[in-house]
């Protein structure tokens, strides 16, 4: 009965070819399935110059898009706002997006337009960097191990004396993040708040979208590739950004990464592949084919313990993709991370593209982003748990992901064993406390999660 209902639902939105596909998928390996021809063959996809756009570059370079009959051109965008606007007005068919972007756009934070995602591009991949000046001030207080090396992860408490100093001299302490609904913003805020530092609230109903109300540290939007230059210019004292822009600070000797996001929340969702809801409705086959190509690319990136990462770094270093020096990109991509110059530490999970079900669009990941939007006032009013889950189900689309996986398996391009039981996946990761403050997160009860924070809105609180 449930299967019949699902089939009808999919038939309604995707036409006949897909129900055939689904039917085939249910009678596993019975006969080869045929996914319909793509509705649109020439596609333009946007990305931001960051190493986590890798699945797009790899799907292009390895011919995975072409295998799906898609002729894709990839185009670097100036910043996340421009990228989102261009997806919404149709100049781009889809794009590499921040995990919070489809959610933020759907519920109308900033721009309002329904965007969906059926593919999660990666886990982790960010870090927080501070300027040399700030690092010199905090380093002497940090505990060291027997070899005299600083012990990681570093908590934000370390920043407190610096903040005092800035307060005494009457200067604002400013840090950069890439977009109001970015994971970088939430990670930075999480890290600060876990140490009792208030990063400030958004008050959209009062017309204040600066996110700086009651802030002890002022957070500003800066496009990722401009972070090092902005910090070098002294406008910001630190930033939260994806790679390679933390390693670039080390290479340019202008700053020191202080904590990787994997230490703030282990295996956190980072980027997704987003398209507008209407585009997905008009081009269902194209959409599934895109997701197929991207899943293959992600699998290639993590294949056999990251064995392809050196080649990936070489590809990403080309000027049309990330363009930073290969050495800088390879640092984080090949499983190590350089903190202070010369302090290189192993970080095999710095960027995760495929393992740990990284490509699956989990509802619980969406709900987490939404809780942070509520926590910091971007969602000004209290919402019931059901609202969080409904929005997550509207935006995150494991149903489409599943169709792509089934098609890959029936094409013989990937094996059932490559995916851990996708067909029985509920979309919610089990409750866990892999956070720097050991708070337990259960995606099914967002309001109870919010109650646990000492800094941040909860219940009916408003700014």
């Amino acid at each position, binding site marked *: 009965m449930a299967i019949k209902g699902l089939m009808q639902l999919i038939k309604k939105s995707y036409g006949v070819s897909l129900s055939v596909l689904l039917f085939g998928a249910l009678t596993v390996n019975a006969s080869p399935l045929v996914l319909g021809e793509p509705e649109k063959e020439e596609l333009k996809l946007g990305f931001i110059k960051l190493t986590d756009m890798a699945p797009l570059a790899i799907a292009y370079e390895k011919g995975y898009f072409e295998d799906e009959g898609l002729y894709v051109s990839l185009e670097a965008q*100036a910043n996340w706002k421009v990228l989102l606007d261009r997806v919404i*007005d149709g100049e781009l068919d889809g794009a590499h997006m921040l995990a919070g972007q489809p959610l933020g756009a759907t519920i109308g934070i900033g721009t309002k337009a329904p965007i969906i995602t059926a593919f999660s591009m990666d886990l982790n991949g960010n870090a927080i960097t501070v300027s040399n000046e700030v690092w010199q001030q905090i380093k002497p207080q940090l505990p060291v191990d027997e070899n005299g090396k600083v012990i990681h992860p570093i908590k934000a408490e370390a920043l407190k004396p610096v903040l005092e100093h800035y307060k005494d001299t009457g200067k604002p302490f400013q840090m950069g993040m890439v977009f109001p609904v970015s994971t970088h913003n939430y990670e930075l805020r999480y890290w600060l708040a876990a140490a009792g530092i208030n990063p400030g609230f958004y008050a959209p109903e009062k017309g204040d979208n600066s996110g700086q109300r009651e802030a002890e540290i002022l957070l500003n939007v800066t496009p990722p590739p*401009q972070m*090092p*230059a902005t910090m070098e210019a002294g406008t910001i004292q630190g930033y939260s950004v994806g790679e390679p822009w933390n390693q670039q600070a080390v290479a340019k000797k*202008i700053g020191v990464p202080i904590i990787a996001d994997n230490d703030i929340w282990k295996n956190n969702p980072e980027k997704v592949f987003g398209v507008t809801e209407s585009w997905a409705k008009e081009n269902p086959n194209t959409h599934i084919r895109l997701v197929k190509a991207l899943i293959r690319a992600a699998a290639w990136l993590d294949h056999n313990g990251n064995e392809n990462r050196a080649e990936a770094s070489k590809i990403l270093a080309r000027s*049309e993709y990330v*363009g930073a*020096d290969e050495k800088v990109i390879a640092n984080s991509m090949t499983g190590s991370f350089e903190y202070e110059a010369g302090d290189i530490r192993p970080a095999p999970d710095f960027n995760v593209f495929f393992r740990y079900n990284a490509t699956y669009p989990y509802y619980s990941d969406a709900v987490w982003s939404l809780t942070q939007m509520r926590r910091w006032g971007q969602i000004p009013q209290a919402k019931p748990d059901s609202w969080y889950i409904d929005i997550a189900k509207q935006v995150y689309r494991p149903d489409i992901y599943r169709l792509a996986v089934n098609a890959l398996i029936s094409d013989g391009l990937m094996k059932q064993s490559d995916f851990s039981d996708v067909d029985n996946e509920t979309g919610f990761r089990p409750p866990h406390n892999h956070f720097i403050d050991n708070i337990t997160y259960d995606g099914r009860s967002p309001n109870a999660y919010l109650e646990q924070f000492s800094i941040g809105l909860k219940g009916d609180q408003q700014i």
Partner: protein
Amino acid sequence: MLKRSTEWLLPILGILFFVVIWHFSALQVKTSLGSLPGPVQTAEQFVLLVEDHLQEGEKEQAFYDRQEERNAKKLATDPDAKIKMRAYTGKATFFDQIVTSLVTVACGFILASVIAIPLGLVLGLNHKLYMAFNPIIQLLKPVSPLAWLPLVTMVVSASYVTKDPLVAKSFLNSMLTVTLCSLWPTLINTAVGVTNVDKDLVNVSRVLRLSYWQHIRTIVLPSAIPMIFTGLRLSIGIAWMVLIAAEMLAQNPGLGKFVWDEFQNGSAASLSRIMVAVVMIGFIGLMLDRLMLMIQKRVSWDKQQVLR
């Protein structure tokens, strides 16, 4: 009159002097990406960009070969399948970007001239109209391209909605911004040129009872042409400057995007590549100006006039 040899020698000496100064001063400027590129690094990077362009050509060929193969396979399984050749999807090289910018600036500039010259003629011939519109012209003239761009982008996005667009929105955005900014010098100069037609000539026209069109063709246009061209030359200079700014800001394809992308890349070669683009932008600007000058010399009836 200078001797023919010195006529060539002096500019070359000037350029040499500049290159030497550039070479030595660049070494003194340290950035976090290394010292500023001098003429040598810039030339090296230029060669690399040429090689890159050639390599991309090979990739393009491979792309089409693969596509043909795939199409053939498709036809083999389904003889009725519709086959279409898709354009190459690889990156635009430095030289592709130059072509894009040139096409955009040409379209924007031609559109601006098509609007500005007739409008200028009408305003110049009719004093009252001129009085009425002059404040608006003066008001719009100093508006920066960076202010027009968001408006143009929003309007184009909202009004240019087709399933199968003839040209890209980004092209329209850049082109219209160029038009809006490069319109004014031609318009004003045309109007002024028309107003300043010799009174004697106007009287002659009256005595001969020339028709309106004859009056414009034989009396007004020839004497206004030097002013119109002054306007056009100013306009094309502005058009080129505006285009690069618009491309940088809106990430529309072209040389401006090349510069911005390289700035974002921040690799060891980025600065030299930007320097190549800067030299190229200057050179193209110069060539455009020379081109207008050449046309002006052709059509101007007063061959004695000193043009520079």
